[in-house]
């Protein structure tokens, strides 16, 4: 069996699939690519059992064949080649030979049956399907992925919630301390359903998304993201997502308007003075200004700054973890001004842009930390 392929085209293909190859795994078979030549098409697969990636190009081959080959070694050699034609030959002694104009390389291969079975999505009219622009999807991940939890106690929170409805496509992430809720109103679906996509799928997608449209298909256990020449299929987290809607407060009537960059810069400085274990900063909010203060008792250091604001009430004192405030603000830097909607020192705070966008709603929640009584 033999086939030919351009080295630069193959490199491009491999680079799209390699993110699914796990860096550390007890199952060494996952450190390989699955090559599948079928009816003039070369499909390359990689998986870590949670996500799988597939990409394809046309090749001229004399027959259909599948085999498994070491991912890292193949990728490194192809990547380092100048543009040339690589001539692949499979030998009966389980070697795959790569021959170019100036060199010959030989790698061992395994039978395709050794590779785990991969979930596939056949074209099916009954299946739920949505199309979204790649940049929009990337933007949603960029704005929300920081709030996904890393704690295994609540597995659902280790992913991003996708909620499809005729209101639009909603993304929710939370670790219990902060929450991001982002709605694309123009990505409407005829079905109402929600799914939890694991963090690994989100981070790999963020790397490969571009301006092209993405076709999202799903069943109960898997979700497929089809970009131009690449498909990512991820397992879904089966645990129920917490009821995010019930924790978004309705009674937060105090509003605090503030310049995003000024507040963020101040928080970064105050972080230097907060105790490293608690990272607590105190906001003493008055009508026209916020006094932000932090104290590190271990170092005997403290700092305070004033940031001008518009507050709808007389005064309020509230404590936050400054790393969390920084996370929220640094994902809203495209907004010149933001509004904090507050209730009291122990209740969730809503943070949202002053300027509403036509097609996107975004709100973030932040839980305070207790100030010493």
């Amino acid at each position, binding site marked *: 069996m033999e086939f030919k392929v351009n080295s630069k085209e193959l490199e491009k293909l491999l680079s799209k699939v390699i993110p699914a190859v796990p860096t550390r795994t007890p199952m060494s078979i996952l450190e390989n690519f699955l090559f599948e030549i079928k009816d003039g098409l070369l499909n390359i697969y990689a998986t870590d059992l949670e996500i799988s990636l597939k990409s394809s190009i046309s090749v001229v081959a004399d027959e259909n064949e599948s085999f498994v080959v070491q991912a890292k070694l193949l990728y490194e050699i192809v990547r380092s080649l100048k543009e040339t034609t690589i001539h692949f030959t499979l030998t009966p002694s389980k070697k795959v030979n790569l021959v170019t104009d100036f060199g010959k390389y030989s790698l061992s291969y395994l039978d395709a049956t050794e590779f785990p079975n991969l979930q596939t999505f056949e074209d099916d009219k009954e299946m739920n399907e949505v199309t979204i622009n790649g940049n929009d999807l990337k933007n949603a991940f960029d704005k929300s992925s920081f709030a996904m939890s890393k704690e295994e106690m*609540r597995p659902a929170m280790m992913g991003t919630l996708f909620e499809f409805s005729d209101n639009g496509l909603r993304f929710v992430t939370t670790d219990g301390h902060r929450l991001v809720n982002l709605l694309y109103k123009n990505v409407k679906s005829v079905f109402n359903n929600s799914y939890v996509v694991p963090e690994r799928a989100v981070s790999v997608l963020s790397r490969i998304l571009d301006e092209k449209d993405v076709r999202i298909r799903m069943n109960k256990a898997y979700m497929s993201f089809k970009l131009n020449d690449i498909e990512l299929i991820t397992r879904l987290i089966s645990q129920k997502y917490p009821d995010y809607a019930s924790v978004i407060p309705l009674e937060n009537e105090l509003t605090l308007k503030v310049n995003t960059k000024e507040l963020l810069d101040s928080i970064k400085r105050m972080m230097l003075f907060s105790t490293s*274990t608690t990272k607590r900063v105190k906001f003493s909010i008055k009508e026209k200004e916020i006094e932000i203060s932090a104290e590190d008792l271990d170092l005997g250091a403290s700092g305070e700054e004033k940031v001008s604001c518009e507050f709808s009430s007389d005064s309020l004192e509230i404590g936050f973890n400054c790393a969390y405030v920084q996370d929220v603000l640094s994902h809203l830097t495209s907004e010149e001004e933001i509004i904090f909607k507050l209730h009291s020192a*122990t209740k969730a705070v809503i943070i949202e842009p002053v300027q509403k966008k036509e097609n996107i709603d975004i709100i973030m929640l932040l839980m305070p930390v207790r100030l010493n009584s």
Partner: protein
Amino acid sequence: MFSLIDCNNFYASCERVFRPDLNGKPVVVLSNNDGCVIARSNEAKALGIPMGAPAFQYEDVFVKHNVHVFSANFALYGDMSHRVMTILSEYSPDIEIYSIDEAFLNLDGLEHLNLLDYGNKIRKHVFKWTGIPISIGIAPTKALAKAANRIAKKFSDKTNGVYVLDNQEKITKTLKWLSVEDVWGIGRRHSKRLKAIGVKTAYDFIQLDDNYVKRKMTIVGLRLKRDLQGIPTIQMEDVQPKKNIATTRTFETNYSEFEQINERVITFAVSCGEKLRKQNSACNSLMVFIHTNQHREDLPQYSRNIVVKLPFPTNSGIELAKFASQALKQIFKPGYFYKKAGVIVMDFTPADIPQYDLFENSDERHKPLMQAVDKINSRYGQHKIRLASQDQKRVWKMKQEKLSPRYTTKLSDIITINL
């Protein structure tokens, strides 16, 4: 100069304070559940009863030699220890309480005094006020003070319980006398290895090349070598809050029912909560473990542990009990006879600065409730107030058949003297 003060046969001495009739007679103290010998008076040592001897194997020896056996009475020992340490702290502003019966005193700035007299004064003071005999070693470094203490105790007839290493001649003599396995900080593994290369005494040890010591025993070993050479390297340590807290017990009998073990695990969790509150911490993770009796090879064996990350930091006994019980459910398997279980709490944050959670929070009402529980239990005795899921049916009780009265911590146990 540093001094190491060590209470002689501490637990046995505590028992004797209130039972002067036992002076000169063999006394042993047993571990929790009356399992093993954990303290021996000199007379008991002379009978050849080893440290850690299982009590049931030495039953005959105890009877034959009229050995007075006590169950561990930690309320008494803890209180006596506190009294001793309070007196010691009068003799130096810098005290490191090293264990229940040992403390280092930093004597820097007191070199103008006759340190032998100073040591004798401390010794008399402690004995007169508490009845506890102590040994004192004084030397230029902590490791040498530990060695001096050994001499003070071993040759108490000559030293009268106080020994000062105040010149190089004495130091060298001590190091040549001290076996390498008796050096503070050299464990069984290292001493075996050192002996294999001909290092038999502390003196041999300090002749070793620095690089060799560092390679084989890391920087910790090198620091110890410097300390033994008389260069103060190991410094006084402040008391650090504990990084994790464990409550574990070996059961008196085997348990096979979930309910029985659940009751124990809940009690352990409640006890961890108490200890957390004492140091003003809250924990973010909790581990529960159970295992069968490994010495009973005829029975099926099973052991498992599970670590759960809590949704919020807590030190409430009620919440810890709930999480521990849930965790136990996940690892418990019927059909086995369990011998030991435990709860370990870890990953601490300060108790008073919680990050509120959107979905689940530690119940704020538990804070005053736990404070009240702690107060009641400290005034009226351990477990006077407890969860309904704890111990109600009295399935379990620590075996303490030979428990002495709590002379110093319980009003009704105070001795009456007739004049």
